[in-house]
């Protein structure tokens, strides 16, 4: 049971990054269907950075600080560029958001698979496959609570207590720093959106940019910043996936359709990042639950994997039928804003 929950959290963290980023973007009125591409981009840029670093110094003598900093910076930079492209097209050039987003996804996924497949040849490196286990193990550093458990058993603590502490630690303390970062970012985003002036302005831009503009809010700047910031957060999801979940081993299309699930999660959480924390773990659980139901055929597993999407559809219908103001999508979601067209 504890393993299941633990795996569910690990599966959920990339989705949480993605959906928090997408929520910020959508709150400014931009439906970024490029998120799958952005997350791919975050992942592959981290891989490229880490690959060159590991190859330059050798996997044995990497400095932990640099091993984290380089992929992190690369992932952020890559996804920032994607966010800039998206916002340049949709904000400045007022292009259709769906088309731009889909093009971004095509480009990002292609970029990821291309470099994932050809990096070794392009870099003339003498390795059989992209295997960044050394960098990955730095990323996977967790709190040293094993020492505590050892000390407890050495001190002859009651076995139920040790078991309890072990369970508690496994469930709450066994993740890498990025997982906690995801949760903190989600809480911070929820707070900023709901309780601060910046958040209020951002929501105003997403609901009705004309009114926001009249109130003196710089609509273009809010749209740009929220889209770029959202992309960077989503890019971290790619970084987490590749360095933590996949042990630093890139496989083409390994990331799968998690990007679309992240967009689904935004709807599921009715645009609230703090709900997203629980939601992402739930989705993570739904993604792996087929491994834990006994007596399930291979075929039935595939049906179970559709659950997150079915649940999302039901939430979408429910939300629209109820017409509660707080849980509807931002009103101008998907529409470009041109001041002179009001």
């Amino acid at each position, binding site marked *: 049971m504890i393993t299941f929950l633990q795996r569910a959290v690990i599966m959920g963290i990339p989705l949480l990054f993605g959906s928090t980023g997408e929520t910020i973007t959508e709150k400014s009125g931009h439906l970024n269907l490029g998120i799958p591409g952005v997350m791919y981009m975050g992942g592959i840029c981290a891989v490229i950075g880490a690959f060159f670093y590991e190859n330059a110094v050798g996997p044995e003598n990497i400095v932990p600080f640099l091993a984290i900093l380089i992929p992190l910076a690369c992932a952020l930079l890559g996804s920032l560029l994607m966010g800039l492209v998206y916002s340049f097209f949709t904000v400045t*050039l007022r292009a259709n958001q769906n088309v731009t987003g889909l093009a971004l996804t095509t480009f990002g996924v292609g970029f990821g698979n291309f470099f994932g497949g050809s990096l070794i040849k392009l870099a003339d490196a003498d390795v059989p496959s992209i295997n960044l286990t050394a960098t990955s193990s730095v990323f996977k550093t967790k709190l040293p609570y094993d020492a505590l458990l050892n000390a407890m058993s050495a001190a002859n603590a009651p076995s139920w207590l040790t078991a309890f502490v072990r369970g508690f630690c496994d469930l709450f303390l066994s993740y890498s720093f990025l997982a906690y970062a995801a949760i903190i970012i989600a809480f911070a985003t929820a707070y900023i959106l709901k309780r601060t002036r910046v958040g209020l302005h951002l929501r105003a831009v997403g609901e009705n940019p004309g009114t926001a503009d009249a109130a003196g809010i710089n609509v273009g700047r809010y749209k740009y910043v929220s889209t770029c910031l959202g992309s960077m957060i989503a890019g971290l999801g790619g970084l987490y996936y590749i360095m933590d979940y996949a042990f630093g081993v890139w496989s083409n299309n390994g990331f799968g359709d998690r990007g679309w699930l992240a967009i689904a999660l935004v709807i599921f959480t009715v645009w609230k990042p703090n709900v997203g924390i629980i939601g992402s773990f739930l989705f993570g659980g739904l993604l792996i639950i087929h491994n834990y139901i006994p007596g399930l055929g*291979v075929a039935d597993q595939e049906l179970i994997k559709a659950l997150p999407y079915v649940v999302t559809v039901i939430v979408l219908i429910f939300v629209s039928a109820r017409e509660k103001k707080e849980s509807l999508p931002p009103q101008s979601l998907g529409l470009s804003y041109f001041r002179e067209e009001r």
Partner: protein
Amino acid sequence: MREPLFHISKRTEIALVKAWLIRIAAIALALVLCAIVTFALTGLNPLRVFATLVDGAIGTARRRWSLLQGTAILLCISLAVTPAFKMRFWNTGAEGQVLAGAMATATCMLFLGNRLPSPVLFPIMFVCAVIAGSVWGVIPALFKAKWNTNETLFTLMMNYIAMQIINYFVYQWAVPKGSGQIGIINGDTKAGWLPAIFGQSYLCNILIVVVITIFIFIYLRFSKHGYEIAVVGESENTARYIGINVKRVIIRTMLLSGAICGICGLLIVSGTDHTVTRDSAGGQGFTAIMVSWLAKFDPIVMIFVSMLIIFLQKGAIEISTQFGLNKSFSEILTGIIIFFIIGCEFFINYQIHFNHSRKEAKA
């Protein structure tokens, strides 16, 4: 007072020639950028790379047929999503609707294939594919009409539900059992395969798509339905005011959109692959959205746009095999070109005025 460097205004109209010059310039710029990217990645002479690209797309008779076939399939899906788009119904679920049609066709071929004579089998396959596609398309439309449920997200989710359902049946009916794939259906008897015409197995697909193109062109341009779609797309309030039943138009259009996607699924399964997997549509449902939009919903322009994209894809695949690169190279090139075409629309729709008149006056 600070004077902005330039200001932007919407063009009222633009000469057709000028608009096309802008588009051609954009594609030319995109190709230059593609050449630079290719050069940066491979260090090869860009001109040689382009020669390889052209050769990969139309070098041999087989490649030319394959280009036409690919164009037909992409065009078919683009045509399918166009009526919905014109109505401002963002059907991002073409992928799922094609898969629904593909699954229905495959089911017919598996279970009726060797039992019924072809003249009976083909109509049944056709009807099943159309029904499956349109059911998959109309579900989001019903909710859109009833509760104004966001259709972009709804149709998007339907894609993945369709994929998982296909996976379910693929495992269930796997040949041989447990292999996880259905394999070529009726490979020995070719029951349910679209017949080869003049020895060309793809010609039948292409002809069907030609018929669909003409149909959609007439439907959108000259029929009452087409007119209603255009009005709903321009303004729902106007449509309601002049007595158009908007809900009915939404549902009817999505039925049509899904039905054509279903036919496309039939073309893929019965006319091309003779098998079904979750990747049968291969992401073309998404590419089609871009094609339809880039062509400004004009079926005739769509022919050229989809051919351009397939041309690039086939060519880039040839480049990647020749130079030992990953075949996703084509996606990068496609992405770049689509970005440029999207971007150039801005210069067609808007005009930039530089504010130098003021400066001159001062001097």
